[in-house]
C-alpha cells in the first residue's frame, strides 16, 4: 500500500471518532441522536479528504501518519470544545478550516523550505518581536499576570505560538552552520564565539521570564534550544551547562519576580486554605476534575464544569477550553483516555523524529527534530502544568485547545514536517530504499 493510501485509511478512524464523539455529547445533552453529529463528521471528513488529495498532489512521498495524527488530535479537540461550549466549537471549526488553508498555502508558497535558511536573521528578529508584542501598551495585556496575548479589535492572538516556529527555524539554520565550530576539539574552548549563541538564547529565555512572565513558554523555548543544540553538537556538556544555567536563572527569578514567585507557591501548595479559593483555585479545581475522572472517566459530555449557586451557573473549572482542557479530558475519559491522548502526541512526535532521522541534510534534520521537540515540550508544559509536574502556565495543548493562533501555528508545523519528510522519502525511494 502506498504511503498516501495509508494516510487515507488513517483518516477513517479520525472521522469515526468525530462522529462518535459528537453523538455522545449530543446524546448527553438532549437525550436524542441529532443529525448534527453526522453533519459534523461528514464535514470534517470532507476537509480531511481535501487536504489528503492536496498532499497526494504536492507531497506524494510525505510521512503517511503525521496528517492523520494531527487530524485526530484536532478532531478530538473539536469534540471536547463542542462539549464545553458550542459557540466556541463553531469558531474552532472555522479556525480549523483556516488552518487547513494556511497549511496548503505554506506548502504551495514555500515550495522549498530550505530557502528559509536565507532569512534566518529576519525570522529570528521577527520572532523576538512577536514575543514582546504582548508588552506593547494598547494591544497587549496580562492574563493571570502573564503577557501571552495581544488584542486587535475582537481578535485575540498568541504570538508565542508562531514565535516558536521562527525560533526553531533560526536555531536549526544557525546551528547547522556553527556546529562544526562548536564541536571542534575534544573539550570546547570557553570563548564568546562558542558560548555566544548559548548565552544569547539563555538570555532570551530569562528575558521571557521577566517580560512575558511565563515559565511555561520559557521552558518550551529554552528546551527546544537545548534539544537542537544537542542534536547539532552531540555535546551533553552543553545541555547540562544550559540546564544548570536555566535552573539557576529560574530559581533566581522565582525568588525575585513576585508573579513568578506566586506561581511557584501555588504549584507547591495548591490546597493551602488561603490560596485554594483564590490564586490556586484553577489548579486545585483541575486536580479535582482529574480525581473525579478515575480510571475510566465519566464519559463524553459528563464532566461538571458549572455549579448552580443561587440560581446562577458559576464556572467551576476556569479556562476549561484552553489551559485546563486536559483536566476535562481526564475527567470525561479517565486515566485511560488521557493516557491515550498522550500516546497520540507521542506517536506524532515519534513521526517528527523519524522524519529527522530520514532527512539527509543538516538543516532538515535539525529543523524536523527541533519542531518535534518544541511540539513535545509544549505538550509537556501544559499537561505537566495541569497535572502539577511543573507550575501551571498558559500555553495551549497543540491541536486540542481552543485558539486560532494555536491551530494555525500547529498546521504550519505540520506542513513543515510533511515537506521535510517528502523530501527525505523522495530521495530514499529514488535510491530504492524501503520506506
Amino acid at each position, binding site marked *: 500500500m502506498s504511503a498516501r493510501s495509508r494516510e487515507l485509511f488513517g483518516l477513517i478512524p479520525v472521522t469515526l471518532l468525530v462522529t462518535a464523539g459528537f453523538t455522545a455529547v449530543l446524546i*448527553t*445533552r*438532549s*437525550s436524542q441522536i441529532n443529525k448534527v453529529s453526522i453533519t459534523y463528521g461528514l464535514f470534517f471528513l470532507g476537509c480531511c479528504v481535501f487536504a489528503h488529495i492536496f498532499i497526494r498532489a504536492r507531497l506524494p512521498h510525505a510521512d503517511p501518519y503525521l496528517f492523520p495524527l494531527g487530524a485526530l488530535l484536532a478532531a478530538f479537540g473539536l469534540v471536547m470544545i463542542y462539549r464545553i461550549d458550542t459557540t466556541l466549537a463553531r469558531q474552532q471549526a472555522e479556525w480549523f478550516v483556516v488552518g487547513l488553508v494556511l497549511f496548503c498555502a505554506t506548502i504551495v508558497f514555500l515550495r522549498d523550505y530550505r530557502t528559509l535558511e536565507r532569512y534566518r536573521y529576519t525570522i529570528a528578529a521577527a520572532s523576538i518581536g512577536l514575543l514582546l508584542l504582548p508588552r506593547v501598551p494598547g494591544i497587549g495585556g496580562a492574563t493571570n499576570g502573564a503577557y501571552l496575548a495581544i488584542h486587535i479589535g475582537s481578535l485575540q492572538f498568541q504570538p508565542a505560538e508562531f514565535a516558536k516556529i521562527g525560533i526553531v527555524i533560526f536555531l536549526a539554520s544557525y546551528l547547522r552552520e556553527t556546529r562544526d565550530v562548536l564541536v571542534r576539539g575534544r573539550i570546547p574552548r570557553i570563548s564568546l564565539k562558542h558560548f555566544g549563541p548559548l548565552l544569547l538564547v539563555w538570555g532570551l529565555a530569562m528575558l521571557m521570564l521577566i517580560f512575558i512572565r511565563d515559565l511555561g513558554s520559557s521552558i518550551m523555548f529554552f528546551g527546544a534550544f537545548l*534539544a537542537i543544540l*544537542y*542534536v*547539532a553538537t*552531540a555535546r551533553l556538556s552543553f545541555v547540562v551547562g544550559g540546564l544548570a544555567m536555566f535552573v539557576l536563572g529560574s530559581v533566581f527569578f522565582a525568588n525575585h519576580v513576585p508573579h513568578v514567585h506566586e506561581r511557584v507557591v501555588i504549584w507547591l501548595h495548591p*490546597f493551602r486554605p488561603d490560596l*485554594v*479559593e483564590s490564586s490556586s*483555585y484553577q489548579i*486545585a*479545581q483541575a*486536580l*479535582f*476534575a*482529574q*480525581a*473525579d*475522572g*478515575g*480510571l*475510566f472517566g465519566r*464519559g463524553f*459530555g*459528563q*464532566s*461538571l*464544569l458549572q*455549579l*448552580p449557586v443561587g440560581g446562577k451557573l458559576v464556572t*467551576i473549572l476556569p479556562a476549561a477550553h484552553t489551559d485546563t482542557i486536559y483536566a476535562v479530558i*481526564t475527567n470525561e475519559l*479517565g*486515566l485511560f483516555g*488521557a*493516557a491515550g491522548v*498522550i500516546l497520540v502526541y*507521542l506517536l506524532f*512526535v*515519534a513521526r517528527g*523524529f523519524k522524519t*529527522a*532521522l530520514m532527512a539527509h541534510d*543538516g538543516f532538515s*534534520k*535539525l529543523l524536523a*527534530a527541533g519542531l*518535534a*521537540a518544541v511540539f*513535545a515540550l509544549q*505538550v*509537556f508544559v501544559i*499537561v*505537566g502544568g495541569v*497535572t*502539577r*509536574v511543573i507550575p501551571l502556565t498558559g500555553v495551549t495543548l497543540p491541536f486540542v485547545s481552543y485558539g486560532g493562533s494555536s491551530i494555525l501555528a500547529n498546521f504550519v508545523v505540520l506542513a513543515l514536517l510533511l515537506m521535510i519528510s517528502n523530501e527525505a522519502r523522495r530521495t530514499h525511494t529514488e535510491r530504492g530504499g524501503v520506506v
Partner: protein
Amino acid sequence: MNKQITHLFGVVLVLFTLLVVFTSRWTVFEAKSLQNQTANRRPLLEQLQIPRGFIYADDGTVLAKNVRSGHGPTLRYSRTYPTNELFSHTVGYSFITHGSAGLEKEYNDQLAGNANEFSSIIDELSGQKKVGNDLHTTLDPAAQKLALQLLAGRPGSVVALDPRTGAVKVMASVPNYNPNSIPSQFKRLNTDQAAPLFNRATQGGYPPGSSMKVVTAVAALDTGRYTPNSVVSGKSPKILGGVPLSNCCTEGSGNYGPLSLTEALAKSVNTVWGEVGEKLGKKVMFRYMERFGFDSKPKLDLPSDELGVSGVYGSHGQLLGPSDAIDIARVAIGQERLRVSPLQMAEVAAAVANGGKLMKPRLVDRIENPDGQTVDTRGPAEVQTVMKSSTAQQVTAMMEQVVKAGTATSAQIPGVTVAGKTGTAEVANGTSNQAWFIAFAPVPNPRVAIAVTIERTQGEGGTVAAPIAKQIIQQLLKGNG
C-alpha cells in the same frame, strides 16, 4: 546526528511517561484524598445528580422523595418531604446547602447508592448511573399525627415502640420544623430559643421524676431483696441521703404508715422508694440502670450526635458513676442530677413489657433497591436481658395497679389492661413541672410501650401526660396486630 535524535526521543518518552504517572497519581492514587478536600465541590454536586432513595412509613406513606429538574449535565435532584413537619426530627433532611440530619444522614450511603464498593465499580464500567436504595421505616404516621395533635404545641415528646421487636412507631418532638423549609429558614431555626431542630425524644435530658421508680422496683425485686408485698414505712419526712425527704408537694401527699411496694408504687410514695434505693445502694442501682441502657448511647439508628446519654450528670456535664458522691435515694425517685431522654424511658417500659428482654430500638425495618428487592433487613435484635421474666411479671402487676387505682387512672382504656407509671419532677425552682407517663399495653401480651413527657407544665404526669399516652395506645392497638 541520528544517535542524538534517538536520544532526544528517549527524553520525550521519559517526559511523557512522567505525565501519565502524574495523571495516575491524581486519578487513582490520590483521588480519594482530593475528593475529601473541602474546596472540592464535585462530590456534593455528584450527589445532586443521584436520585436518592425514598423513605417510607410502615403503611407505605412517602416521607421523603425527590424533585427532578433539568436534564443531561444540568440534571439535578432535590429533596422534598410530602408529610412536612410530621416526622421532622426522625426522617431529618438532606440539602447540599445545609447538610443532613436524621435518617437522611444516618443512611446517607444507602440512600445515595454508594453503599457497595464492588457494585459501584461495575456501574462505572457499564456507565450505569448510581441510584439510591429506599428505606422502609417502622414509623406509624396516624399515631405520630395524633401525638403531635395531643402535644398541641406544648414543648415535649412522645416515643412509642413495639416492645416485642423494638420497632419505633411514634417519635414526636415539639417544637418541630418543616424539613422543606430548611434551605430558606435554616438560620432562623438554628438560632430559635425554642430549639426546634433539637430532637427532644433522643437528645432531651429531663429529670424523670417518679417514672424512675419503675427502674428502682425492678432492681428491688430482681435482686430478691424485696417482693411486691414487702412492707416499708411511708412516713414523711424521712432522713435519706442525710437530708429529710418528704412526700409533700410531689404526687399524693403526706404521711403514710407501713406500705407494700405495690401500694407505694400506685401512690408513688417518695419516702418508700427513696429508702428502697438507699438500701439497694449505688452499685445495684447503677447495675440495673445500665442494663436498661443508661450511661451509654441508645442503640437507635440515628446519627450518634443526635442521641443523648441518660444518666447522672456532674456539674461539668460529665457522667457520674457509683463511685461518685451521689444521693442514690433521690436518684431512685428520679431526682438528684439524673437526666433521661424520652427514648430511654420508653425503653424502660418496653423492657418490662417484653418479659425483661430489652429489644434494640430501630427506625428502619428494611432497605430495598430500586427494583424492589430487599438488600438489607434490620430485624428484631435483643440488646440484653434486663431482669428475670418473673420480675417483669411482678413489676407489670404493680404498674397495673398504678393505672387501676393509683396516680394514672386517666390512662385507663375500657377492655384493655394498661400498666404504667407517672412522673412529675419539679423544675425551674419548683415553679413548674416536667410531667411524665410511661406505660405499656395490653397486658399480658403488650404490643405498645410508650413514654410521654411535657416540659414546664403546671399539670402532673397523671393529668397531662397519661391522657395523651392513653389515646396513642388506643390508636396503635387499633392499627397493628
